[in-house]
């Protein structure tokens, strides 16, 4: 794995090129870039009533108009306290996250109160949306003492790659050139001819290649932030396969055609399915561009690029026209691009800035399943996490079709008097409580309000399938035992 976070990788990079600061009145590192000190505190997904220990990181932000500072979402994740700092003077200003999009890996930071003269003499950056291949780029940093440092790189190619969330691929610019590491930097602003040309998020010191969030994505994000409500990027909701195999092409009866990619599955409730796309459809054209059998099209500016870019760069609510091949016939489909936020998934693919939903009954800890919970299994979580839960995440469609909104499961047990005999239970998917189907944590809370003859009846999809808990005893444990013995006072989070 050569590509690592800039923070680590760049430490090994050899110093290569220094250029001094730009013109006196135009944008420059010291006039257009600020230090951002962020204290992050993630929620504890195993013990959802508490947070993890806070950690403080330092990054760089690009100053934009209206005293907005642009950083990556990765830096701003789970922020509980943040300061903007003027590198030369060390002057600090308490700030807050104004907007954050974890898929786009971008966030804006604004002062909490009137900044007074904090920004006096600073020059905001504009976003350069006309960037072309081979453009010379400048990457800005500060020395530990606040002195500016610049490195240069050349924009080499565009591709689709994950930013911060591993399951989301978006347009990325790659630039060639050595970038030397300076203390206290996390993500770096990239500048072209005095305008913001991207945010550097990864650097491969071996090949001297930088991954940069392109200005088109930044521009889209900023415009979206300015016009409430925030829309984000749409989700397509289909899996595809290449059609390079001539035998497959014959089977699909597309051997006389050119290119095309095969839809292998569509997710219920997502844009593709709602617009009428089906399994076995072959997508031949997207937004007027021919799609080759690898799923790429030729972008007039950026060259060969995945068709995923055409789909995901559409505005939310917009239409993407597609030409598809279905049962031997060409069909035109207008795909209305809708956004499905993380909370719409059966298993939230990510969760920041909030704790997972949970409910304690006696010592039984029920949660809504999230991917961060599964990721507690460590780097090999896809192999190691509880199998039933992993399998549910992989096959969310089956549960969504059953009418579930979220997967409520018993994540573990805090031994207490009312739940004697159940201490070994864990990782069990809840089906019904007191004969009421449980489709999310609110259903669960509602069901617990109505015990049957003073006893809660809890049903799971797996062994032991059925348990009972005395309602009064559990209530007493909730009121006395859990606060006294486990020091838990917040017994649920339903929102």
């Amino acid at each position: 794995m050569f590509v690592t976070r800039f923070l680590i990788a760049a430490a090994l990079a050899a110093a290569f090129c220094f250029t001094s600061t730009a013109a006196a009145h135009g944008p420059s590192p010291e006039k257009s870039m600020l230090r951002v000190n962020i204290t992050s505190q993630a929620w504890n997904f195993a013990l959802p009533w508490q947070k993890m220990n806070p950690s403080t990181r330092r990054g760089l932000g690009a100053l934009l108009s209206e005293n907005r500072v642009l950083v990556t979402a990765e830096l701003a994740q789970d922020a509980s306290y943040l300061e903007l700092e003027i590198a030369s003077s060390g002057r600090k200003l308490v700030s807050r996250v104004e907007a954050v999009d974890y898929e786009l890996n971008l966030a804006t930071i604004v002062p909490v109160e009137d900044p007074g003269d904090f920004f006096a003499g600073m020059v905001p950056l504009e976003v350069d949306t006309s960037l072309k291949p081979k453009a010379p780029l400048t990457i800005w940093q500060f020395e530990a003492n606040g002195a500016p440092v610049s490195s240069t790189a050349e924009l080499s190619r565009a591709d689709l790659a994950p930013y911060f969330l591993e399951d989301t691929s978006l347009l990325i610019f790659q630039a060639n050139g050595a970038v030397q590491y300076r203390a206290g930097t996390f993500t770096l602003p990239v500048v072209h001819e005095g305008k913001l040309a991207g945010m550097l998020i990864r650097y491969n010191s071996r090949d001297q290649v930088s991954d940069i969030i392109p200005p088109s994505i930044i521009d889209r994000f900023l415009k979206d932030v300015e016009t409430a409500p925030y829309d984000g990027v749409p989700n397509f909701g289909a899996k595809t396969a290449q059609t390079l195999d001539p035998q497959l092409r014959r089977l699909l009866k597309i051997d006389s055609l050119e290119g095309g990619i095969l839809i292998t599955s569509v997710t219920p409730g997502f844009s593709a399915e709602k617009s009428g796309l089906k399994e076995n459809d072959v997508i031949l054209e997207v937004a007027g561009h021919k799609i080759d059998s690898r799923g790429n099209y030729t972008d007039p500016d950026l060259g060969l690029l995945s068709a995923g870019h055409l789909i995901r760069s559409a505005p939310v609510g917009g239409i993407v026209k597609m030409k598809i091949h279905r049962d031997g016939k060409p069909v035109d489909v207008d795909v209305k691009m809708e956004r499905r936020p993380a909370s719409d998934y059966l298993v939230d693919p990510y969760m920041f800035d909030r704790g997972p939903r949970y409910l304690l009954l006696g010592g039984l800890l029920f949660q809504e399943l999230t991917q961060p919970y599964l990721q507690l299994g460590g780097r090999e979580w896809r192999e190691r996490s509880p199998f039933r839960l992993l399998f549910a995440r992989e096959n969310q469609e089956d549960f969504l079709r059953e009418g579930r909104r979220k997967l409520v499961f018993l994540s573990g047990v805090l031994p207490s008097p009312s739940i004697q005999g159940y201490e070994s239970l864990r990782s069990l998917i809840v089906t019904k409580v007191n004969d009421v189907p449980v489709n999310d944590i609110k259903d669960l809370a509602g069901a617990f309000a109505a015990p049957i003859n003073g006893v809660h009846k809890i049903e799971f999809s797996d062994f032991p399938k059925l348990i009972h808990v005395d309602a009064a005893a559990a209530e007493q444990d909730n009121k006395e035992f859990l606060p006294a013995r486990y020091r838990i006072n917040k017994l649920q989070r339903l929102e």
Partner: protein
Amino acid sequence: MRVFAGLKLDKAGKVGALSGKRRRTSSRRSRGGSISLNLQPENATAREMRLCQKLRRCSIRPSLIGPRRNNPIPPQSFMKKHPLSLSLAVLISLTVSLSAQEQTDEATTSLGAQYEGIVNIECNSLEVDYQAPWNPATPGGGTGTGFLIGPNLFLTNAHVVSDASRLVIRKVGDPQPYRAKVKHIAHDCDLALLELTQPVKAFEKVKPLQVGDAVPKLDTTVKVIGFPIGGERITVTRGVVSRVDYQDYSHSGVDQHLAIQIDAAINPGNSGGPVLQGNSVVGVAFQGYSGSVAQNTGYMIPTPVIQRFLKDVEDGSYDRYVDLSIAHFELLNPAQRKALGLPDDSIGVLVANVDAEGSCAGVLKHGDVMLAIDGHAIKSNGMIEIEGEEVEMAEVVERKFSGDKLKLRFWRDKQQQEAEITLKNVEHHLMTATKYEYRPNYVTFAGLVFQPMGAGMMGAHNITNLRTRYFYQYFASDELYKVKPQPVVLTNIMPDSINTHIREYTGQIVDEINGVKIKKLKDVTEALAKDPEGGCITIRLLGEGRPIALDKKEAAAAQQRILKKYLIGEPAFIE
């Protein structure tokens, strides 16, 4: 008793105990510095390892002592096994000459008549290759111990003589190797009976060892006799009975029976040897932990298991253990008892799962409470009393045979009911068991390799596909055998121009070929033989939207070319 698919049947108490163990090992210090006892997600692999020992060896699992098949690299020094080939011949000749030379010494030191029936067993075996199932098996072998229990009848462990291509018995002080063969073998309880191919004089006057009936008491002294760490001299170690409990029998990977833990040293080569108390055999040494896990813990197969085996084979064949094929849960919570309408008398366990093809199918159902088994009241922790001893309720079933009846008293809809069931064993429980005396089945076509799902195949191909793992783990408990009695997996693709675009699709279950649902391996050959529409063979994998298409004519031509190129002798082997 059988352990299957994430549940330990007939023995829910053990489920708790095991998960407790897992909890402790998997609880980690979380990033925030707080230690969570059991709220971290459990480690799925821990459970899988029990089911699929070949996939990843569990360090907690007792490793077999003595030779062990299907495991080319012996873990630790815990097995006595020699590599094949020329070195073996040298070793044998060395052994023979040594014992000839020292024969007189042994006669004069007088080992005592009671040890005369204890023999060294040398086994040459074949290790099958699930990765390239067309290959002839790899020769290997090892040594263990056995003992005479009747005229020309030697008892040893199944794992000492499994997959044997050649068996030789050696008597202490006798230079002559005697050819032997397996008479009966029970892989579910790791026992085997051997006989010499031709009875010889040498054993005529040897007094057989007497196998007792009683289970030795805790803290009583026992002697282990055998041929550990090679050598042709008998070795004796001594210790006490440390624990009597149910244990996994690692030979099959899916069975649990009574086993006795002793602290006498048991080492590789001891396997199959007698454990004596006085002059009576109280057990057969069979497995232990490697030193890195636990010290001074060896296990022996106790007399009830041995006697059952000997009785089972009286009719000339071994019929395996029978099973209730249910999962039960302890009834320790007062609210649970109250809701089920049970009196507060600490009797009864909840029936959590009933195997649809097992002994209790149609009689018990999920939500029933088992109250008594053959007249023995079942305590709420799943224990019963037999002859004054507290034992697991499974013990009643352990002593019975296929076709035997069993009386059940149970609680349903707040009423007591009685039923009689006929005990049987269930085929689909064996899917995850390690197979012996078995040649891997397969079908190859146009470079695609199809194999039936099983422990050997899952381990050899290191399958990570979630759906395939799901079928393997939940085959019995989710009744997946009803859909696919013998799931077929596309395990490998031998590279060729015909399959160059589909190589990423291995590790998945084959659902359909040419429109025919694939329920077992035989269906693959039949479906491939069909004349598909448009001359294009279509293979659909379970949960995969991208079909595999193969031009039938081109595939037929490729088939010959691939068989030749990769030295695949037969295109298929189906038993």
